[in-house]
């Protein structure tokens, strides 16, 4: 039987147990390691130098002092801090620590200080990154190299250093080598590690990473048609709506300026997806991305739903996910169109009013041509709520109000060439395909207006191009 103890001089409990260690060493072989000063403990002639923290890291020490009992080269038991009864149990020496207090908590091991586990995992080979190393000369600026290499969307990136990538990878339980899927347009397999490199560049924190991974996986579902969305002439890009407890946990903003700038999670999750498509998939503007205009949301477009009202059915639950599940929903969306109605005070009027605004999506004379998101502001929602209307009733009223006489919409009607097929002149025509209108609650108080996010024109092929959802994993 032998013992091993990991200590640091800058720890009062380690200093307290010095006489105990002396007592133990009289009975058994004892090896000491010091994390900060190999001359400590002086009375015992110092310790082995573990200022590299390799021993501490390999032993998984998180508190000092840590005492480990070893038999035949195997760890049998361990204790940490100073708990006299525990030390007696581990050592079997009943008289150990007489005269000392019964208990004193230990101190944090240097090996678990913030950022240190990732540093040590890289240093001691527990994590090996496979991506190509780019060396940066001391005269060079990493941010400028990223521009020169074509890695950015036009905004500066966070340089993807090994340590930052290692920290990003702590955000998931998944293996860095696991393949997420083939990223269009070049259909290149993307590993978790490559996603992490791009998430670092986008500015994500590790706790956002599971949302990024779910977003990428959702975008790769065949029915989402990410290749087509990238290649389209139309404005659209992927719009990510996040639901569930994770939105609160990672500090997303569903309130004021929800569709604007200012929140790190909102801003960087959407950007990470775009950078992955750009860098791994090779999808770049004015190359495979043929968009005539694009839209500012192609830098990033991600926001959570406001789920603070218990009466409101969240979008993901309406789409079939269990309540309390965290999900991403991906939509093919354009920019934001404001919709003001500061006069409607009853639910029916407001539904008809919002429907009138939604009719303009893509073109007022087109129908079942593109989808839309209606982002319902708190003030507009309150009008519905005060009349006892929830999601189902609002959606049903909108659907009804979005029916229009075909004769007003057919080609050349109202002296305008664009329009639906003349054969539909006698029908009442729906504006959207079933499931093509997403109602999402978000935004800050103070404005009786809501927002419309128009959708991709390929939604007219609604069986081939679909809105998708994916549960967020770990």
């Amino acid at each position: 039987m032998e013992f091993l103890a990991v200590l640091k001089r800058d720890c009062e409990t380690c200093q307290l147990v010095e006489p105990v260690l002396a007592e133990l060493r009289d009975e058994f072989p004892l090896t000491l390691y010091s994390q900060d000063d190999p001359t400590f403990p002086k009375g015992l002639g110092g310790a082995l130098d573990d200022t590299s923290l390799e021993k501490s890291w390999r032993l998984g020490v998180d508190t000092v002092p840590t005492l480990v009992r070893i038999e035949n080269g195997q760890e049998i038991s361990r204790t940490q801090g100073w708990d006299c009864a525990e030390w007696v149990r581990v050592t079997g020496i009943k008289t150990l620590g007489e005269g000392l207090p019964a208990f004193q908590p230990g101190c944090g091991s240097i090996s678990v200080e913030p950022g240190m586990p990732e540093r040590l995992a890289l240093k001691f080979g527990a994590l090996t990154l496979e991506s190509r190393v780019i060396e940066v000369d001391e005269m060079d600026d990493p941010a400028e190299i990223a521009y020169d290499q074509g890695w950015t969307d036009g905004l500066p990136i966070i340089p993807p250093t090994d340590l930052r990538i290692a920290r990003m990878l702590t955000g998931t339980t998944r293996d860095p080598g696991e393949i997420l899927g083939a990223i269009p347009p070049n259909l290149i397999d993307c590993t978790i590690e490559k996603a992490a490199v791009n998430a670092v560049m986008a500015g994500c924190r590790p706790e956002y990473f599971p949302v990024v991974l779910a977003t990428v996986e959702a975008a790769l579902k065949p029915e989402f048609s990410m290749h087509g969305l990238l290649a389209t002439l139309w404005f659209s890009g992927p719009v990510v709506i996040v639901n569930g407890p994770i939105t609160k946990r990672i500090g997303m903003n569903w309130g004021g300026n929800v569709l604007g700038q200012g929140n790190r999670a909102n801003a960087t999750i959407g950007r990470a997806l775009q950078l992955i498509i750009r860098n791994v998939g090779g999808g770049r503007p004015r190359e495979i991305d043929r968009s005539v205009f694009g839209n500012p949301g192609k830098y990033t477009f991600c926001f959570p739903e406001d789920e603070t009202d218990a009466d409101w059915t969240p979008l993901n639950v309406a789409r079939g996910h269990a309540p309390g599940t965290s999900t991403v929903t991906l939509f093919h969306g354009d920019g934001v169109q404001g919709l003001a109605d500061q006069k409607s005070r009853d639910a029916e009027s407001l539904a008809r009013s919002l429907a009138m605004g939604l009719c303009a999506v893509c073109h007022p004379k087109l129908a079942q041509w593109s989808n839309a998101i209606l982002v319902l502001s708190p003030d507009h929602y309150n009008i519905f709520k005060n009349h006892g209307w929830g999601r189902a009733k609002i959606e049903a009223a909108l659907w009804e109000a979005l029916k229009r006489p075909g004769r007003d919409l057919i080609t050349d009607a109202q002296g305008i060439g664009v329009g639906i097929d003349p054969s539909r002149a006698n029908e009442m025509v729906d504006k959207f395909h079933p499931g093509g209108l997403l109602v999402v609650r978000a935004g800050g108080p103070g404005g009786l207006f809501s927002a419309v996010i128009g959708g991709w024109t390929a939604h007219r092929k609604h069986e081939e191009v679909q809105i998708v959802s994916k549960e967020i994993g770990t």
Partner: protein
Amino acid sequence: MSGYTMRDPTAETAAVRRNRIPPKAVLANATIGLLSISKERSEEFLDTVEAQLTKRGLKILRYAKPTHTKPAPESVIQDIVEHCDVIVEGLAD
């Protein structure tokens, strides 16, 4: 060297630059493939092209992507490569 390193965020693949096959100088005896991308009025456009080319005695084979929202399936591309000397891909709108 400063010792500062980053990791490559790209797929780390180098595109192989392939030269285009030179256009056929003479179309006589050539098989012309007409690929519809399946957007509105693609067919109408390609029907017109087919009529013009048939008048000139050329052999025409018609192909279509199942949807314009996705790339052409490999089987369609393979079929074209095996049977056509020239391909015309039809847009629309």
